[in-house]
């Protein structure tokens, strides 16, 4: 065995309080498994926001429609990477597709992912961009024009009938897409929620909590990106749009908060066998990440800020400032939520008699740097996407707004 691991585990052992099963000294799911549900949550949330625009025809939010779809795609492309890197045998990962064990929640990952990527997101993006791709392929210089032509699958028809068909297709895809997005992240919650061995995870509310927090984080991310990217692209931030999305965000946070409080009260009131160790977990190991970051900074403060913005008549500039601060806090809070679920669930022993500690690697494959790289990568991809497939500056987008 490599001495480094032995050294690390010996350090872990010295941090253990009470009794844990001896095999529990090693924490199995580290920072990468925190990043994974965080990223899929952003995907699902961003997509659901985009779908709101389509399904309910919310004109105000139109400026963020393409941005939300591209964001979802950029993050979805990175989503499997943290899982892949954390596997003991990444080269065998194809087995999940070839010989899935159908009773396993995790085996569904490949199928849910591919379905969502291929059947929903790429298809919707294609229909959304098809007309523009055709137009751009005529106007752009080499090599972009060839790229556009290939991506449009050599279609040339921009007649009214064809574009009307595109819109119809988008509506149908959205109708399928919303449940798919729910599935994508609800299922991630199910991976944790169905583990009966672990009382911190095993809750029927888990998929719902994951889903709502996904919507919260996705909307917050799109707001953040819109507030950063739109001015850079010379678009200016549309305040009507911003006010509208933030009100969605506000309601989503309230539902999310309600679910989490319900989960909390339910556990406390039922007060099962695990309650003592879980109390020690949240008051000791997770105190900062749960109470301070997730609940206070990630939920209560942004909620208070948004209530204040709604009730006070603030200037546009102040509103923008408050919104911006809120979405960053919310993002931080949701990351802490993922952390508290994934890491928190492994910090107590299944003997309910002791606690252990997670010491994050810094440089290793499952370490901090890799996690940061994985979180930055989608933004780089998104930048490229926005360069090649502008989200604004198109006539059709402008028409839609006006």
């Amino acid at each position, binding site marked *: 065995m490599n001495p480094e691991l032995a050294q690390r585990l010996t350090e872990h052992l010295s941090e253990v309080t009470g009794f844990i099963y001896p095999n529990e000294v090693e924490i199995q799911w580290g920072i990468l498994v925190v990043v994974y549900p965080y990223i899929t949550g952003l995907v699902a949330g961003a997509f659901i926001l985009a779908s709101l625009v389509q399904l309910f025809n919310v004109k105000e939010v139109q400026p963020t429609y393409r941005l939300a779809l591209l964001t979802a795609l950029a993050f979805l492309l990175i989503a499997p990477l943290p899982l892949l890197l954390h596997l003991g*045998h*990444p080269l065998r990962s194809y087995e999940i597709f070839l010989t899935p064990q159908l009773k396993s929640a995790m085996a569904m*990952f490949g199928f849910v992912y591919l379905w969502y990527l291929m059947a929903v997101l790429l298809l919707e993006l294609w229909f959304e961009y098809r007309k523009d791709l055709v137009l751009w392929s005529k106007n752009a210089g080499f090599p972009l024009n060839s790229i556009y032509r290939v991506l449009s699958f050599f279609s040339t028809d921009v007649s009214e009938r064809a574009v009307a068909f595109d819109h119809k297709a988008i509506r149908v895809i959205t109708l399928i897409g919303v449940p798919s997005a729910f599935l994508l992240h609800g299922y991630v919650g199910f991976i944790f929620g169905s*583990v009966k061995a672990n009382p911190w995870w095993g809750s029927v509310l888990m998929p719902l909590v994951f889903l709502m927090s996904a919507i919260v984080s996705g909307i917050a991310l799109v707001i953040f990106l819109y507030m950063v990217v739109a001015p850079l692209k010379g678009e200016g931030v549309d305040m009507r749009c911003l006010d509208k999305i933030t009100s969605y965000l506000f309601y989503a946070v309230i539902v999310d908060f309600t679910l989490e409080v319900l989960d909390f009260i339910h556990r406390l009131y039922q007060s099962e066998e695990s309650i003592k160790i879980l109390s020690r977990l949240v008051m000791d190991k997770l105190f900062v990440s749960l109470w301070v970051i997730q609940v206070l900074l990630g939920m209560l403060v942004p909620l208070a800020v948004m209530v204040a913005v709604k009730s006070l008549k603030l200037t546009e500039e102040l509103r923008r400032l408050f919104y911006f601060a809120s979405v960053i806090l919310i993002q931080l809070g949701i990351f802490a939520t993922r952390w508290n679920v994934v890491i928190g669930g492994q910090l107590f022993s299944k003997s309910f008699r002791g606690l252990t500690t997670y010491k994050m690697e810094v440089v290793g494959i499952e370490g901090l740097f890799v996690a940061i790289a994985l979180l930055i990568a989608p933004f780089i991809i998104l930048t490229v996407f926005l360069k090649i497939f502008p989200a604004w500056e198109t006539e059709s987008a402008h028409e839609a707004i006006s």
Partner: protein
Amino acid sequence: MIDRRKFLKRAVFFIPAVGLFRRLAGDAQAKAPVAGYDPSNHLYGMGIDIDKCIGCGRCVEACKTENNVPKEPFFFRTWVERYTIKKDDSVEVENIDVRLRKRGDTTTEADVLRSFFVPKLCNQCQNPPCVQVCPVGATFSTEDGVVLVDSNRCIGCRYCIQACPYGARFLNPETKTADKCTFCYHRIVKGLLPACVEVCPTQARVFGDLKSMASRLVRFKRMKRITVLKAHLNTEPKVVYGNLDGEVR
């Protein structure tokens, strides 16, 4: 000449067909581990007599040697816990591995209400959560009732480790795959006893075939008040304990 539509259609069928073929091919290779051994005639289990365990830890050593379990005290296919229940009802539990021996606890005999040892291992559940969650079917139940891991198929996702309520699994640092007690499957199919049972000086571990009325295990189950660990989780363990204390989890 194959046109595009036909090609796509066939591709759609090709992918699951490959999966099916692989599965069939895998099954075709599965054959009896030892000539003449028929797994359908057996159903293995283990009884643990709490009153007999003296906490010598020889089972742990034997297991590590027999099964190439890493020697470091973080990986165990079987281990022994010492429970000390004090007069103030507080409970102290310790894994009594020889490498961890850090004597110097302040418990004096006068404080102790009762104390005993609990050998632990994979419970070889009839309804195993680890098998349920494995995404690729690398963990499976054999016909003769043992839960095994195919280390050539395991992708190392560690979901099974999370799903096991008993902490019986670990990620083997050498193979990077999930690892756990196999009841020494390579031995029992030859009619030998698991290593831990073989070396136990007090016969605290009773191995046997639940399908044979003559087995020591069936007698153990008849003579003892038995219980299983975490019965409320409905995992239906085939490792049963005689005279187990209610404090044990």
